[in-house]
């Protein structure tokens, strides 16, 4: 009985390693930019290492046994050079990854996790219909996201960043805020929810055409105008500073609210 439990425990412990051994692909790279194009379901996690590790979370080898040992190609002519359904191309300081899947509409693309060295810059674009939430965590490099439908969740990031989603809600939780370059977050139909340390120095440019701004931070509004006509056609814009001013925060939504919280 004891032995059985031991064996089972051992197998359970080893199982993830046995599986990931077949469904992950690595590129040696500790800095530069990771460009993620056309991946619909992806999480990106920063870590202290020198490799980019691509992991296909739900790779099912049984799915198409007829294709075993063969390489997949997509309509764009790209080939699966990673063995896990991705085209991964290195070019100088950047690494570009695209999904090799022609199943854009069925929602049956594989889910991926990408582990990146913390300092890497991330560029991600996904402009097709649909697409799952985008999760990025623990990244200190610059982040650029350009998507149409995806919700976005950024956690333990520092900026600088330029993030836009037409329909998606955007949540950003800063570990601290880099003062080097602006933080720009924009949505049309989604809300924006920012959490940052309360001592963050920032200049806020907040545009909310049809929504409101909510905050528990000590926001010092610079363009106060209490006699303002609410029906004015002008863009509703607040210029404010936090803790005396610092890096620029450009936040805008057209139809939803903006939340800025103290961490």
């Amino acid at each position, binding site marked *: 009985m004891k032995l059985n439990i031991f064996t089972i425990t051992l197998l359970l412990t080893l199982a993830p390693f046995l599986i990931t051994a077949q469904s992950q692909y690595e590129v040696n790279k500790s800095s530069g930019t990771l460009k993620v194009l056309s991946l619909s379901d992806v999480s990106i996690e920063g870590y202290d290492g020198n490799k980019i590790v691509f992991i296909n979370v739900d790779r099912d080898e049984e799915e198409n046994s007829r294709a075993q040992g063969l390489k997949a190609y997509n309509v764009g002519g790209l080939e699966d050079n990673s063995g896990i359904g991705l085209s991964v191309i290195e070019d*100088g300081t950047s690494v570009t990854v695209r999904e090799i899947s022609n199943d854009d509409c069925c929602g049956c693309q594989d889910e991926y996790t990408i582990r990146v060295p913390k300092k890497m810059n991330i560029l991600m674009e996904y402009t097709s219909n649909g697409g799952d939430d985008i999760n990025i965590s623990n990244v200190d490099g*610059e982040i650029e996201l350009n998507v149409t439908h995806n919700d976005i969740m950024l956690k333990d990031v520092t900026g600088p960043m330029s993030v836009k989603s037409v329909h998606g809600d955007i949540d950003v939780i800063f570990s601290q805020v880099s003062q080097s370059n602006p933080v720009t977050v924009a949505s049309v139909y989604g809300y924006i929810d920012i959490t940052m340390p309360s001592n963050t120095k920032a200049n806020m440019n907040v545009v909310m055409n049809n929504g409101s701004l909510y905050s528990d931070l000590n926001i010092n509004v610079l363009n106060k105008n209490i006699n303002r006509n609410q029906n004015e056609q002008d863009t509703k814009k607040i210029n404010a500073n936090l803790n005396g001013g610092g890096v*620029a925060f*450009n936040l805008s939504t057209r139809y939803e609210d903006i939340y800025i919280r103290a961490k």
Partner: protein
Amino acid sequence: MSELNTQLIDFIDKNLSAEEHRKVEQAIAESSALKAEYLELKHMVTLMENAPQCTPSSKLKSNFDSLLAQEEEAIQSAKKGKSILFNPQFLMKYAAAAALLLVAGYFVGQNIGNKNTIETIAEEGQFTEAQMIAMLDEPSTSQRIKAVNIGYNMEDADDKIIDALIETMHTDESGNVRLAAANALKKFSSNDKVVDALIYTLEKSNDPMVTIEVINILASIKEKKALEPLEKIAKSNSHLNFVKDEAEVGIFKLKTI
């Protein structure tokens, strides 16, 4: 250094034949390493072109003149037979000094664009027009957005700044930067050139977010010239439904409010 690298300066100065120009242009488009080098070089050339001219004070000039006179006297009194110009040692000194100046200038130029230097300049108002325009070529997206913000906040933005913002709205590779440029241009919408550029973007942009922003800018400034392209979008098959909805809203605002 390859032939292409050495041609970059001539490319930037537009000194190449049409064929060579095309060749370099293509090579830049194909190689990100070359593109990075091109951007850096272009940045530097812009900075050098726009570097302020230093005029020496009259005191410095008279000091120099008197030094020169003293030197001439010294040379004449020494009665050297051969011309000073052909004295190799003398020439070497000048060559070394010139080289030192060049190297120092290069590093100064590099540092102006250097991120660390920019970090220390907290106030956006402290940037010059040339620095702002050069920053629009930086590889970092957020730094280009910063440049757009600087242009927006400039008290006396002239045609150069407006042209740079228009070019950015039309051609920047990042939708985030194009969006920021469109937003910034709203401030200058009393300028006909800006209105034409916004309408051009309305007709040509394939980024839904940029299109929506431009629709709203044109509606808020009540620009009737936008009606025709908006009606085209509302009826088109190539635009996404929510963009067509925004175009309808824009038409409504222009016609009724």
